[in-house]
């Protein structure tokens, strides 16, 4: 019996070797190497010295870094919006009516489209004399045009809107899978007790979706803090620093200014922040929110 495990061990490790090798180099190594890297001032151009915690001290005095942390936190506000809307969408497309599968696919198309294309389309729609301004003026919501992406007070929220638009289909699919796992008898039983549609959602659907809501919220928060593509393509952090998010700033410091040591330190701080936010989401899921049976 022991011999069987031993020969299985050999086979097991033989199978896993190539994959683990790649993971070691491209998944474990970045996490590990980030630490010593952050304690140096490695920047390709100058000599490298060990600088201890200097980078971290500098980070908390770095005005732009602090602004980027704040912007990333503001970005997290998009998470509840996305989750609520995508849950409602999932409930909607869970209806068994002809043609619903077509609609599900349509809602997923923004998800499979490259962010480059999505950003381009919206930058045109939102530009001066663009379709959005035109429609809003015509309907009377605006009295004059707004430079959505070039105005510091609106740019970040517009980016959040684009992130939401592209992501709704993705979360809708995840929630739909969750919804389809809920046995119909539960709804029947509740209906027999006289529950209307709203109460059905609050007392049957949501509690049973709890694990999905937790999972989706955590990955959504992680995605929000580390948002990059749409910001980099559309505003690069501007105007000023109004849309400078943490990932963009780290990218600028690391891969544009080649300040690898400092950028690693910034990255570590952000990772800790993300981990803390994830823990917070786990806690909230247990205490507040909806009660489970």
């Amino acid at each position: 019996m022991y011999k069987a495990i031993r020969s299985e061990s050999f086979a097991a490790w033989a199978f896993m070797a190539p994959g683990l090798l790649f993971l070691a180099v491209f998944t474990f190594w970045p996490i590990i190497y980030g630490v010593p890297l952050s304690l140096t001032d490695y920047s390709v151009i100058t000599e490298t010295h060990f600088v201890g915690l200097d980078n971290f001290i500098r980070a908390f005095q770095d005005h732009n870094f602090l602004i980027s942390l704040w912007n990333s936190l503001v970005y997290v506000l998009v998470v509840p919006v996305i989750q609520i809307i995508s849950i409602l969408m999932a409930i909607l497309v869970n209806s068994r009516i002809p043609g619903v599968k077509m609609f599900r696919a349509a809602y997923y198309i923004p998800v499979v489209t490259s962010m480059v294309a999505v950003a381009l389309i919206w930058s045109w729609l939102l530009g001066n004399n663009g379709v959005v301004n035109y429609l809003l003026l015509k309907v009377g919501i605006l009295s004059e045009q707004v430079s959505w992406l070039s105005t510091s007070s609106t740019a970040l929220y517009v980016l959040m809107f684009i992130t939401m638009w592209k992501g709704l289909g993705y979360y809708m699919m995840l929630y739909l899978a969750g919804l389809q796992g809920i046995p119909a008898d539960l709804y029947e039983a509740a209906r027999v007790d006289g529950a209307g549609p709203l109460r059905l959602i609050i007392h049957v659907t949501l509690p049973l979706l709890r694990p999905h809501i937790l999972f989706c919220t955590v990955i959504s928060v992680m995605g929000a803090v580390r948002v990059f593509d749409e910001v980099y393509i559309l505003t690069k952090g501007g105007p000023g620093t109004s849309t400078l998010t943490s990932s963009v700033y780290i990218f600028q410091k690391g891969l544009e200014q080649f300040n690898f040591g400092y950028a690693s330190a910034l990255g570590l701080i952000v990772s800790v922040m993300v981990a803390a936010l994830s823990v917070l989401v786990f806690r909230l899921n247990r205490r507040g929110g909806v009660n489970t049976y």
Partner: protein
Amino acid sequence: MKKALRHLIIYVLLILLALFMMGPFLWLLSVSLMPGRNVFANPPAILPTFIAFDNYVQVWEFMDFPRYIINTVVITLLGVVFNIFLSCLTAYPLATFRFRGRNLVFTLLISTMIIPSATAMIVHYLTIQAFHLGNTFLGVVLPAAVSVFNIFLMRQTFLGIPTDIRDSGKMDGASEFRIFVQLVMPLVKPGVAVIGLLEVMAFWNNFLWPIVVLDDPQKYPLAAALTYLNGQFSYNFGWIAAGTMISVLPIIIVFLFTQKYYMEGIAGAIKG
């Protein structure tokens, strides 16, 4: 009667949402079909007044699209093959063998999902440079050649294979590897299909990492080349729109044809 009303409301909501989600794409399509129109004219162009494919023909010739498409296909193919190969090989023992160190591997894998690295790209850049893979397609593909997510997804699939298969293979005297290749792998096609699809979409749409790794714009994949398109012809909206449609349509078509596997795959992944 009440049921019909409910259905009507549902359809209205579905259609409104569809307009919201698909509207921008349809608008891009109509812009691409109108040569010479200004997207920022007043009133803005929404519906095409005439249809012409000039933009597509012109931007195709001017931009040397075939090259970018080939780049994208090569990168995507490499990426998909690596991922399927590596994630299957790595997931199989985790699902079927008992061996020393199994829990350790599990813990390590899960911990990487909890600790996201905000500086992964920076370290990857240094690693790729160290291996002298800068400005190569391999340099673009290797950092994403396998992912913990794919490994867990395949593991979930392998767990669904009955153990008798392996036992009967062993009784016939086959080696573990032969059992894996000839008996087990043919049974996990759905899982492989899902990974294939997810990776095709990820590699096809990836623009940032290729720009970081590749110095030569001639090697850019479509998404990266698109950013240049916008930079070079900022005022020829028709061309930009046509170019964007060309790069986006393949993925949409692939998605529409493979939806079924995709949805089933997501549902399966959720359970795992």
